[in-house]
């Protein structure tokens, strides 16, 4: 019988488990590097690649700055103060994160047309892309700020409040949460580099579009791989040092034993500013693009055709999402248990997870395509089937599931396993009776989140889907150029409605967990 005590003891299996898990997640990208060094491998990146990189960097920097400028103050107010409608507004903020970015871009593009705004105005080109990507970045910064602020205790805040007043509380909290907020903003910017959707729709295509075109239109896999690796290297240079720098404080804030934050304070200015600030963000990130979809849909709602499309793709969409969620949560649980409470190991794992999340998703997808071309035909079920899509999506969102689960395992009491060891409760029974039931609510939320994020991921599915097996967002992405605008609008509204329902379920599960 293996003692439950092993869960709280050091052991070689911890490092081995983490190395195996991260190796599994990084394997597709590593496969892609090999052919670069073979004799006769090409070297160029294609005409226009440097310009595309420049355009992408401009949009990424703009999105990151806008996200930080709006998200940090909103996050601070939300972390510290109680105000009317705080809870529902914080929930609605998550919606843009769970819907493909190109859907918001379509909404913004339609809004520009319907409202008769200038073709080269704010809602198109680089500025349109910045707004579309900031719709994802702002909520990310708000949530990162809120998570980091939980590391500040009630007594710390009370001390500052008593000594110097409310403005000092804001400054003190801002100093503490800044690394997390900056990291989230940079992550939002970096993620925009590898997202082809908004650029293609708003007429400012960047490096991600170049990769997609090289692979899907020019059928030049090697060129796409080289472009993707170059983008990956660029991301590594930006994100790896930042992730390492912020991981120390982040891991203490996220994985500390006492993660119960300070109580929300009530002040009159916060009661006024808070709702306006969050409602303003919701309008910018959600209501405006939704209005763009609703406008053509009010003229004609093509429900029957839209539902036919939804029915055709529902099976794949669900399968990809369920597979991604199951694999990511399973690997996340293993990684979280392997990381244990050792702060150095937690910091290393967090850094690696942040870097993995920031890497272009096309790296993993093209790696799998490469592996499929090298593997014998008997392994096609592994590399070319629908399972492959789910697995690649799971690896893509493994960091999200792992961070959530790590937070849960590291805030549990170390004495639980010790008590189980004293009483002779074996590891298997302890896992079954205690640890797994305790992790279930968080694992459920992680699974729902991964399922939604995986569903919203278009680039990966486009690259690895078996022929004729698209998910709903990929189907929308494919038909958006040729289908009637009201059909696209109806499809987008159905998708956003579905995401909103699942988000409500996740919020309900979270409030049950929090009692």
């Amino acid at each position, binding site marked *: 019988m293996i003692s439950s005590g092993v869960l709280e003891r050091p052991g070689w299996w911890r490092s081995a488990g983490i190395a195996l898990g991260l190796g599994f997640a990084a394997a597709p990208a590593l496969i892609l590097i090999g052919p670069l060094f073979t004799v006769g491998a090409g070297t160029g990146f294609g005409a226009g690649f440097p310009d595309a990189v420049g355009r992408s960097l401009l949009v990424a920097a703009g999105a990151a700055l806008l996200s930080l400028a709006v998200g940090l103050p909103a996050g601070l107010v939300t972390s510290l103060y109680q105000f009317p409608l705080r809870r529902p507004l914080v929930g609605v903020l998550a919606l843009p994160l769970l819907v493909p970015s190109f859907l918001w871009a379509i909404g913004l593009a339609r809004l520009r047309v319907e409202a008769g705004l200038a073709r080269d105005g704010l809602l198109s080109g680089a500025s349109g892309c910045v707004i579309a990507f900031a719709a994802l970045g702002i909520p990310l910064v708000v949530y990162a700020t809120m998570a980091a602020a939980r590391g500040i205790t009630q007594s710390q805040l009370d001390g500052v409040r008593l000594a110097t007043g409310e403005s000092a509380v804001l400054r003190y909290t801002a100093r503490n949460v800044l690394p997390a907020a900056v990291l989230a903003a940079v992550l939002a910017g970096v993620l925009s580099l590898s997202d082809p959707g908004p650029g293609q729709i708003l007429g400012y295509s960047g490096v991600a579009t170049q990769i997609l075109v090289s692979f899907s239109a020019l059928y030049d896999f090697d060129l796409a791989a080289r472009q993707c690796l170059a983008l990956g290297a660029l991301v590594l240079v930006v994100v790896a040092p930042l992730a390492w720098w912020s991981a120390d404080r982040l891991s203490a804030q996220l994985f500390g034993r006492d993660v119960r934050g300070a109580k929300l304070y009530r002040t009159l200015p916060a009661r006024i500013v808070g709702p306006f600030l969050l409602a303003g963000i919701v309008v910018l990130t959600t209501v405006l693009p939704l209005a763009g979809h609703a406008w053509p849909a009010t003229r004609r709602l093509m429900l029957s055709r839209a539902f036919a499309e939804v029915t055709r793709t529902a099976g794949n969409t669900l399968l990809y999402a369920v597979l991604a969620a199951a694999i990511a949560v399973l690997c996340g649980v293993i990684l979280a248990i392997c990381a244990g409470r050792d702060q150095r190991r937690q910091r290393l794992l967090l850094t690696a997870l942040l870097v993995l999340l920031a890497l272009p998703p096309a790296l993993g997808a093209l790696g799998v395509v490469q592996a499929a071309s090298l593997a014998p035909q008997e392994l096609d079920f592994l590399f070319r089937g629908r399972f492959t899509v789910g697995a690649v999506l799971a690896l893509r969102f493994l960091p999200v599931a792992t961070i959530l689960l790590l937070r849960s395992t590291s805030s549990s009491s170390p004495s639980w396993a010790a*008590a189980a060891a004293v009483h*002779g*409760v074996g590891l298997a029974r302890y896992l079954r009776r205690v640890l797994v039931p305790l992790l279930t609510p968080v694992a459920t939320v992680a699974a729902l989140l991964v399922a939604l994020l995986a569903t919203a991921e278009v680039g990966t599915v486009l690259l690895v889907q078996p022929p004729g097996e698209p998910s709903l967002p990929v189907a929308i992405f494919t038909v958006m150029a040729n289908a009637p605008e009201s059909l696209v609008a109806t499809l987008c509204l159905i998708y956003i409605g579905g995401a909103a329902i699942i988000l409500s379920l996740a919020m309900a599960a979270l409030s049950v967990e929090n009692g």
Partner: protein
Amino acid sequence: MTPLVELREVSRSFGANCVFGGVSLVIQPLENLALVGPSGCGKSTLLRLIAGLDPPDAGEVWISGGRASSAAQVLVPPHQRRLAMVFQDLALWPNLSPLDNVALGLSGTSMANRERARRSMESLELCGIGALARRKLSSLSGGQLQRVALARALAVQPKLLLLDEPFAALDLTVKAALYEQIRRLSAKERITLVMVTHDPMEATALCSHGAVLERGTIQERGEFSRLLTNPLSETLRAFVKQLPPRGRTD
């Protein structure tokens, strides 16, 4: 008489930080011992070595005349040492009811499920909380939770009960009731107590003997009546100052 616990020159370090080195200590059956000392001196670590949750870096731990741990090795696993432990944070499994906590705590025995349920209920009743057996842990008070932890520990019928500052968060009234209950149960069930505490009242209320762990070694050890009349260590001198006059003479 075979000692119940014998520590022979045990040492423990965490990285470069040596918590204690060459500690030897003998605990005879029914010799209730309070382990006292300043914060961070290694009292809880010593308790974990006795329980077999950690091995010593050097030295040996003997339980009931058998070698249980040696350098970097746990030879007898915790659940085969005939001991139980009440942790500082109680370590109750929060998703289980009091009854299930106690029943799962009997996993190390070879009892059938029905027998396990009966023993668990008996143990909860012994601790005066039989009526709360199926309640949620979150609905219980601090004192009731202490009793659940105690019931889980007593259900395995241990010879040795290790208490790691379990009463720190309780008010005086609840503490007094629990002291009385533990004293009664340890006498009735013939259980030896080894308790880590900072509280002189608690130490003298439950234990006849004391050992002072200071600066990495056992500084003093013996009956409290003798130790408190002529304290040599800083810890015991501080203890004497805190005790009421009657407590000192007792």
